[in-house]
């Protein structure tokens, strides 16, 4: 039943076929292939409807209600969205998330690039260094946060211990509302290996001839970096940028485990606040409304980035689709 573009059903005497026979056969072949295509992608298509489209519709409906899951949902129209505008915690969570993203993403872009430049050329032991820089990214989840929780401990942590050797009394990091968010930004350097790997992939696909030609024209290393490497790397930079913005905006685990949003809500990420409203206070409607605001922000940022592509992203051999 699942047949594709098979070449096995040729009639034994092709010269006896007239044109209309052939086009008929071709058309049925195409229809078969189209059918096979839709059967092949059906798992994803069904999943898309069941786990994405359906829930999104439901989420939109819920966002217009007051619902604690115990009593019947109460239709409140746009009240949830109106309440958001005056909820100081929601405004705080937007501020925190924006500040974190604005600090994290550029650092990740530049840091990953610098790491990649360090370990791009082949020399003895380069593999070991690539491994060392990439390894921390497998520590994602709770363990990553827990390591830094201890590193940043004001009394026994390695950071303040090191600062102590230079006679500096370190701040209380995650326990100080002025430092907590920046401490979370700081510990993110340990995850630069992921963008390093992406950059390495991008750099290795730049044709070597370009550098040879540039060298013959007398361009020095720095000139080559800015006129060849960086422009040809722009699709990779764009990819990392979009991915990084989308994932950073949804940060949850670090704040949940390290600070639980504190101190004084200084690390109250938007997703953490959604989680609280939904699964601690059971305000399903309010949480759903917030998740739609999150969605709108991410969509806006992504579209803006996509639009900006034509100003700074270059594709070798024409623009990609």
């Amino acid at each position: 039943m699942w047949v594709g573009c098979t070449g096995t059903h040729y009639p034994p005497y092709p010269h006896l076929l007239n044109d209309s026979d052939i086009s008929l056969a071709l058309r049925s072949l195409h229809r078969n292939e189209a059918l096979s295509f839709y059967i092949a992608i059906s798992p994803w298509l069904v999943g898309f409807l069941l786990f994405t489209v359906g829930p999104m519709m439901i989420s939109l409906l819920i966002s217009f209600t007051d619902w604690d899951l115990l009593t019947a949902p109460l239709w409140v129209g746009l009240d949830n969205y109106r309440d958001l505008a005056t909820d100081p915690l929601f405004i705080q969570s937007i501020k925190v998330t924006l500040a974190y993203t604005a600090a994290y993403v550029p650092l990740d872009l530049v840091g990953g690039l610098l790491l990649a430049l360090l370990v791009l050329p082949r020399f003895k032991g380069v593999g070991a260094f690539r491994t060392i820089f990439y390894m921390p990214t497998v520590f994602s989840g709770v363990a990553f946060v827990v390591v830094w929780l201890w590193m940043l401990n004001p009394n026994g942590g390695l950071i303040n211990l090191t600062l102590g050797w230079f006679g500096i009394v370190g701040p209380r990091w995650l326990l100080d509302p002025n430092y907590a968010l920046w401490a979370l930004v700081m510990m993110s350097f340990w995850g630069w290996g992921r963008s390093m790997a992406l950059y390495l992939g991008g750099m290795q696909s730049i044709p070597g001839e370009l550098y040879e030609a540039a060298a013959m024209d007398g361009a020095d290393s720095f000139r080559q970096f800015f006129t060849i490497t960086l422009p040809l790397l722009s699709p990779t930079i764009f990819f990392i940028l979009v991915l990084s913005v989308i994932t950073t905006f949804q940060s949850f685990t670090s704040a949940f485990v390290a600070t639980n949003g504190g101190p004084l809500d200084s690390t109250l990420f938007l997703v953490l606040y959604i989680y609280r409203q939904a699964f601690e206070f059971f305000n399903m409607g309010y949480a759903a409304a917030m998740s739609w605001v999150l969605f709108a922000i991410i969509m806006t940022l992504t579209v803006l980035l996509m639009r900006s592509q034509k100003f700074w992203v270059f594709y070798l051999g024409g623009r990609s689709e």
Partner: protein
Amino acid sequence: MKEYSTPILQLHGWRRNLRILLIAAVAVLFLAPALWMISSSLKPDYEIFATPPTLWPISPRWQNYSEALTSLPFGRFAINTMIIALGSIVGHLLSCSIVAYGFARLQAPGKGFFFILMLSTLMLPYPVTMVPLFIIYSKLGLINSFTPLILPTFFGNALYIFLLRQSFKQIPLDLEDAARMDGAGTFQVLMNVILPLSRPALAIVAIFTFQAAWNDFLGPLIFLHNQSLYTLQLGLSLFRGAYNVQWAYLMAASLVVTLPVIAIFFFAQKSFIEGVGFTGTKI
């Protein structure tokens, strides 16, 4: 993967030595947290906050490991995590390879549209569907079961489908045609020609799925409330919940919990790093 060295870094003399020095310094920075973790995991209680602080415990206390792992049912947590991870791997390998074959090889009207639609789901924030999915699963009585975590993997994943499609497209059409001449249908072609030639890409999908399932926190946090169903990550966060954090235990448990992923990473390092690079090649 072909290696080109950007001439910008072909340095000589003192500049070369400076670069090596720089790399070494950055490497120390990257290794420090992990080494500090190991050192702390071996410290006895009184040494954790000792003044003057010690970089390495005077007498390493290996019992920390066995005590940390038995203070909570970590064996149970490990089995739970394993079930979810293996289930997810089976789900993704089955669903993603079939869907990827469709996108790589079969022609149909509307194909371009569905491909773009699929890729655009990568931008969808999980929290938008998190609330309704919780409600649906709780109405179905599936909270406190692994179903909400495993079931979706049997319906594909946009990133892995994209990755496999890229890999399937590299396989010469002639091979497929030859199999069809011998009477193989689409399913046999997929099983006997495409998949055996795509082992590296399938391995990447399996490894990434394993890592994602092993490290997932928000999913299990929402759907698993019964402690006997907890995953390792939830178990780790239990340590944190205690008022008096026992740092040595916490470090020991975190290390053990991360060990399988680190082991796989070292085992399949090349495909790991290249796989990450590969996903970013072109969208």
